């Protein structure tokens, strides 16, 4: 370990290290951030949900959008896999179906950044009991 030689260096070090704890910091106050749940049941994984999830995490990071990406079980829309549920702070969650990488990119650029809705929304036909 190299020594930290000044307060400025200590601050730089903190900035470098805090990325690694980002996941935990955000989960401490999830309601402040965009929350994305990726349906990762067998049908979801088979249609590429895992690739989509990795893409989302990587791209959100690159594009500087703070979001909590978690995986969830089967959402019941097996016909429209991969599906993701997106919740912007203070808004109701919206479920998108047939999310491939292109669609994921569109969701990030339009919905996450500007709140602009994009094609592929699945009307919510149930209420989640854990809310």
């Amino acid at each position, binding site marked *: *370990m190299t*020594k*930290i*030689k*000044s*307060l400025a*260096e*200590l*601050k730089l*070090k*903190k900035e470098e*290290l*805090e990325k*690694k*704890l980002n*996941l*935990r910091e*955000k*989960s*401490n106050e*999830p309601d402040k951030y965009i929350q994305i749940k*990726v*349906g*990762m*049941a*067998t049908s979801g994984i088979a249609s590429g949900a895992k690739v989509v*999830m*990795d*893409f989302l*995490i*990587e791209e959100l*990071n690159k594009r500087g959008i703070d979001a*909590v*990406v*978690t*995986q*969830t*079980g089967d959402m019941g829309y097996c016909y429209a896999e991969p599906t993701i549920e997106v919740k912007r702070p203070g808004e109701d969650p919206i479920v998108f179906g047939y999310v491939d990488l292109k669609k994921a990119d569109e969701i990030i650029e339009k919905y996450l950044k500007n709140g602009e809705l994009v094609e592929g929304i699945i009307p919510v036909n149930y209420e989640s009991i*854990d809310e």
Partner: protein
Amino acid sequence: MAQQIKMHLLVCGGTGCRASESDQIQASLEHELKVHGLENEAKVVTTGCFGFCEKGPIVKVIPDNTFYVQVKPGDAREIVEEHVIKGRKVERLLYTDPENKEHVADSKHMGFYRKQIRIALRNCGFIDPENVDEYLARDGYQALGKVLSEMTPEDAIKIIKDSGLRGRGGGGFPTGLKWEITRKSVAEKKYVVCNADEGDPGAFMDRSILEGDPHVVLEAMAICGFAIGADAGLIYIRAEYPLAIKRLKIAIDQARNYGLLGNDILGTGFNFDIELRYGAGAFVCGEETALIHSMEGSRGEPTFKPPFPSVEGYLGKPTNVNNVETFANIPPIINKGSEWFAAIGTARAKGTKVFALAGKINNVGLIEVPMGTTLREVIFEIGGGIKDGKKFKAVQTGGPSGGCLTEKHLDIPIEYDTLIAAGSMMGSGGMIVMDEDDCMVSVAKYYLDFTVEESCGKCSPCRIGNKRLHEILETITKGQGTMEDLSKLKNLSHVIKDTSLCGLGQTSPNPVLSTMENFWDEYISHVVDKKCTSGVCKSLMRYVIIPENCIGCMACARNCPVNCITGERKQVHFIDQDTCIKCGTCLEKCKFNAIAII
């Protein structure tokens, strides 16, 4: 695309969960992740105590905050295969709300955490205590950097004074004032001492902080060193805290490697280093003068104050002694300002207090609440109420130096002064809850057992007086007490309080006085009626057969371990009182309510 870590599995590595194999859980989780090729996607992190010790070992999954309780090493595969791979929570390991019997999926929705504010415990259960980088990522050592680069020692002392922080070890002395006095003592060498000699029965606040966030104490000690003008710090810790000692040693090494301890810290020319000193676990060594003598290699005996350690302490030099929890509050106060801290709590007591909940309470564990929270909120909301639906009787705060508070005190706000006014004290933060089955005379005797054992013997009021108190209590619980004994008990208690040398003796009669004050009728029934209503004092109990209910089934006689029950089949039985050992087996075995305790 490079794989990203998208999940953290936090495993509690506190002493409590360790004792229930949490280290094996961690190993199993790591193994399962490897087997499934997920080691680049999910990471296992050992943290400090989550506080919810009742249901340990705890595993918390991030980012969805899933809180798994009572996890066993064998559950690792299911957690990985179901939760990590498929995103399905393992229902059977979730915490069940005792009220509505529903699973609580994440910690945000648990009653245990809802009322808590975590300052001293903010990193416990969040970071890996053996990894300085995680501490640095959470503003670690920023307060030290700020103080060294941007403040004078007087500035730092002013912030602590303005914050209103008072000692968390028991005394409640204003921390900033203590620093100021030590700063003003002129000497070529001064010391900062951290008192980690946590000795109250049932208390584990300091241990948890040291195990879960050791760097915060090191950082605070260095800040204190700068403020008072000391370059040496000593942590006095009991040898019976091996995990805390191990993590402190690792933390000290890491801090030295980064140059956050040692010479010329952060290029400011300030030197400060810390060493450990081990105690043998004597209660009296939590008293600061006794602690200092023990560190010097002498007997752990207190000496008369003044001179106070801030004027003449370790090796005769000015020494600032603060407790672990007090130190844990320092870096957040420097970082966020004295106004921020002073806004938490009440007018007379600022900030938060950590309590260790123990006894007949549903959620045994470690909590941190703002000053001014009521005992009712702590016991019934956070603590989840009394075990097995029994009735609350008393709560003991302040350990062997404190007192018992009752139903009528439940709504007083927790502050230093209100607790003293109610006949107890804040103490270091142990809180032992008692229910209707507890005999208060026996509780007082239990604490006296402890004090008699722990008295150092230097002054006679404590050495002899406490022994006599204990003997009188023994007589009463045996049913041989008289009214004269009760008045002796009271008199002697006051004499011991008034004439003992140190805090141990000055407070040791408190459990007796407060139980006499609040449960006088229990003392009376022991002495006059020769009865222990809670059924604890065996000498005062008699098991008898109610002839009307006894059908002569012989179940009691067959199960009696000393064969003291006689009677023919279908005839009323009889218990021989001389042989009976009052074990209660007959009462348990009788299906016809034919056995009574009188």
